[in-house]
């Protein structure tokens, strides 16, 4: 009996269509992606039927956490670097170039300005462990107002958006709205999630 030759050719699987698809998806996600911002607190936004999209740039976000702490965030690295220098001169705090560049790439923060240099000196991992008390908004020491004024100075096209947790108490929100009004900001946006369902029933 002749020996049966074992087929030595390795089974080659045609991967081309799969690779095509994988790269198509990679390209799609790369182009459409917008990274989740790593906010220091989770914010569960209230729902509304508004379908107006928030613009992508020139946004100042005031974050309100569930327990009423206030956080500040602004986009645009260059403007942020300007902002920290300006606000440093106002509060007589000299930020080192390293601290300025760290602030430029920082996301939301909620600290009294006095604690900011120390916070910026920490590594990103250490920062996550630091308990942030929120930006003072009371009438005696309203640092949020200063942040607003100086932010608008470095970027006059800034739009203000309030991203509050639905469970936050209204007095905190009222204090922020009053702060905005005192600084002649009477148009702003409340960031919400889209509500689905009950709207259709109403019509």
């Amino acid at each position, binding site marked *: 009996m002749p020996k049966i030759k074992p087929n030595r050719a390795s089974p080659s699987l045609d991967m081309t269509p799969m690779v095509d698809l994988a790269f198509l998806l990679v390209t799609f996600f790369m182009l459409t992606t917008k990274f989740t911002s790593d906010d220091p607190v989770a914010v569960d936004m*209230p729902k*509304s039927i508004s379908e107006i999209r928030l613009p992508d740039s020139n946004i100042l976000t005031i974050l309100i956490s569930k327990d009423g702490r206030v956080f500040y965030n602004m986009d645009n690295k260059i403007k942020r670097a300007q902002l920290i220098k300006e606000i440093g001169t106002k509060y007589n705090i000299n930020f080192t170039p390293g601290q300025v560049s760290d602030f430029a790439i920082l996301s939301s923060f909620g600290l009294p300005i006095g604690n900011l240099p120390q916070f910026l000196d920490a590594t990103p991992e250490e920062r996550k462990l630091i308990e942030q008390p929120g930006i003072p908004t009371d009438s005696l020491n309203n640092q949020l107002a200063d942040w607003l004024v100086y932010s608008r100075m470095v970027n006059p096209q800034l739009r203000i958006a309030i991203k509050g947790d*639905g469970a936050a108490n209204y007095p905190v929100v009222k204090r922020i709205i009053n702060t905005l009004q005192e600084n002649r900001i009477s148009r702003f*946006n*409340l960031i*919400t999630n889209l509500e689905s369902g009950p709207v259709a029933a109403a019509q």
Partner: protein
Amino acid sequence: MAQINASSAESKRLGKVRRKKTFIHLDMTPMVDLAFLLLTFFMLTTVFSKPQALPLALPDQPADSVLPPVTNAKNVLTFVLGGNNRVYWYAGEDVSGAKLTDYSSAGIRRILLANRENRKLWVFIKPDDASSYQNVVTALDEMAIAAVQHHSLADLGPAERGLVKGKVSSP
């Protein structure tokens, strides 16, 4: 197949030489690995639901010498947002006749739609300190649903404070 046939050009040149059957095998596995790694990364980090914005325009704070505009009480509806998702509402200046309602579609929305004919309708939303941010956004949202042209946020008066604190009249 994921192979490149390198022999075709050569065989043409050499004429009748026996056609070589060797293929260059390109191992695509690392590339595929990388492609899928990137795919997973982007899929997990991407945000599809972009947040929506509810625009809110408040009146400028008037100078002290300027009196706020006077509105006919007949055209005024007031919603007082209390704690525990309670809403009190009354028409005109009749605080004592306030009724309890809620945030469902049979609550604020029905009251607003009943007053839809009134083009001069002014709605005041007065959130109490016990109310939550969600309550305020829902109330503002109801204004948008019922297309109320004039609405505004205001602080509670003494009578309304009593209303929220004390007695609850039946709806």
